C-alpha cells in the first residue's frame, strides 16, 4: 500500500529546532555508515568528503548537519552555511527511501528543495537511486554469516 499523505502536527516544527539535533543526527550517520561500502560505494561518494551537508526535516523542525570523513559519516557541529542543504518533510523522505516517489517529481512540486552545490546534490540523488537494496540482505559486519 502506498504511503498516505501526512505532515507531522505543527507542534513538532515549532519545538523541533529547540531540541538537541545530535541524537537524530547520530541515528542518521549510524544508518549511513552501515550502508557505506556495502550498498553505498565509498568511491562514488568521494566528492562529498569534507563537505558540509545538511538534511532538513521540515515538519519535524530538524536540521541534521553531517559530513563524510576518512572513517565514514559523522555529525558536524559547525553551524556555518552548508555546501549542500536538502529539505523535505518526513513523509516525503520516507516515500523517497521506499522508491514510491521520484525526487524530480517532488522537486517540480516544490516538496523537495536542494540548495548549495547542485553537483553534490545530483551525486547524492543519483547515488541513492543506484543503491541495490537487495544487497542489504548480505550479513551485517560483525555478525556471523547465516
Amino acid at each position, binding site marked *: 500500500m502506498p504511503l498516505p499523505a501526512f505532515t507531522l502536527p505543527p507542534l513538532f516544527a515549532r519545538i523541533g529546532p529547540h531540541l538537541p539535533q545530535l541524537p537524530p543526527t547520530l541515528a542518521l550517520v549510524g544508518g549511513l555508515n552501515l550502508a557505506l561500502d556495502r550498498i553505498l560505494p565509498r568511491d562514488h561518494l568521494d566528492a562529498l568528503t569534507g563537505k558540509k551537508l545538511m538534511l532538513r526535516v521540515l515538519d519535524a523542525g530538524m536540521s541534521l548537519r553531517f559530513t563524510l570523513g576518512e572513517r565514514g559519516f559523522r555529525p558536524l557541529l559547525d553551524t556555518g552555511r552548508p555546501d549542500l542543504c536538502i529539505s523535505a518533510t518526513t513523509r516525503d523522505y520516507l516515500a523517497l527511501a521506499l*522508491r514510491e516517489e521520484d*525526487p524530480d517529481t517532488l522537486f517540480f512540486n516544490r516538496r523537495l528543495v536542494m540548495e548549495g552545490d*547542485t553537483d553534490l546534490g545530483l551525486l547524492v540523488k*543519483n547515488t541513492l537511486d543506484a543503491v541495490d537494496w537487495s544487497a542489504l540482505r548480505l550479513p551485517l559486519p560483525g555478525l556471523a554469516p547465516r
Partner: protein
Amino acid sequence: MPAAPELVCPAGSLPALKTAIDHGADCVYLGFKDATNARNFSGLNFDEKSLHEGVAYAHRHGRKVLLALNTYPQTDNWPSWTRAVDRAAEAGMDAIILADPGLMAYARRTHPTLRLHLSVQGSATTHEAINFYHEHFGISRAVLPRVLSLAQVAQVIAQTPVEIEVFGFGGLCVMVEGRCALSAYATGESPNCQGACSPGKHVRWEQTPKGMETRLNGVLIDRFEAHERAGYPTLCKGRFEVNGASYYAIEEPTSLNTLELLPELARVGVKAIKIEGRQRSPAYVAQVTQVWRAALDQLARNPEGFRVDARWMSELNKVSEGQSHTLGAYHRPWK
C-alpha cells in the same frame, strides 16, 4: 494493422534498469559514466559491473539493452568514444545509438554484426538523410527528432527501409537536437560534446526574499514563488524580461505525452516508442513504464477499441515537468 511498437525505457542506474524490465519494457537504454552520453550527470549511469549485471538481467528476461553513445567526439578524445563502442560489443549489448558518422563508420568496420541505431541527436528528419545513414553505415533504426508532425512521420516511414522510433513521453526542450548551443552559451560546455545540458556544477538554487532563484553560471534563469511548480534549470525553459514583460520567452516547461496517438503511431508503422528520462529515478521508470505497457497491451489486444484510460493520464501527469502535457509537433494542423 502492424504489430504494437516496442517500448524503449530509460535507465540511469541498475535499479532503474531492473525496474523497467519488471514493469514491461521491451528495451532499456543506458549510458556510461562519462561524456559519451547526453546525460552525463554526477552519480548517474553505468560502470562495467552494473552494465554486465544489467545486460544479464535483461537477457535473462528476453529483453534488449541499448547503449546511448549520442554525443560528438573531438579529435583529442576520439579513443574514449571508440572504446565505448568496443565496451558495448564486448558486453553483448543489443545495439548502440549513435549520432556521429565517424563513430558509425568505426562501429561498422570493427564490429560488423553490432546493430546500429541513429540517435535523435543525429537530427535526421528526412528519409533522404536516414537512407544515407542506412546505405553508408547500415543503420537498422532511426530515432526521429521531436519536430515532425504525424503526417510527416508517416511519409518518412513510407520511404525508408529503416525502422523508425519516436518519442512517446517525457520532458521537452527546444529540440534543436544535437545542435543546441544555449547551455554552452551560458557555461562554455557543450551538451553535444560534454554530455550535459546545464551541468550541475554551473547550477545554483537559492531561496531569496523574492522567491526561489535558479542560476546557470550566474545567469538568472527563473524565480519561483512559493507554490509555483519548478522546472529543470535550462535556459530554454527560463523566464526572461522581454520588452518590459517577464515570461517564458523561448518555451514553457511541458511534457510530451502521445498516449492518445498510440493507435495512429502503430498504424503508420512506428516500430518503437521511446520514453525520455535517464536522469530520473527508478520510481519514475516504474510509474511510466507500467502505464505505457498497459496501453500497448490494450492496443495489441484490441486495436479498434483502444481508449486512453483516465488513470493513465493522471499517473503520467503526476511525474511530468511543467504544468501541462502536449502532443508536441505530432499534432500540427498547419504544414
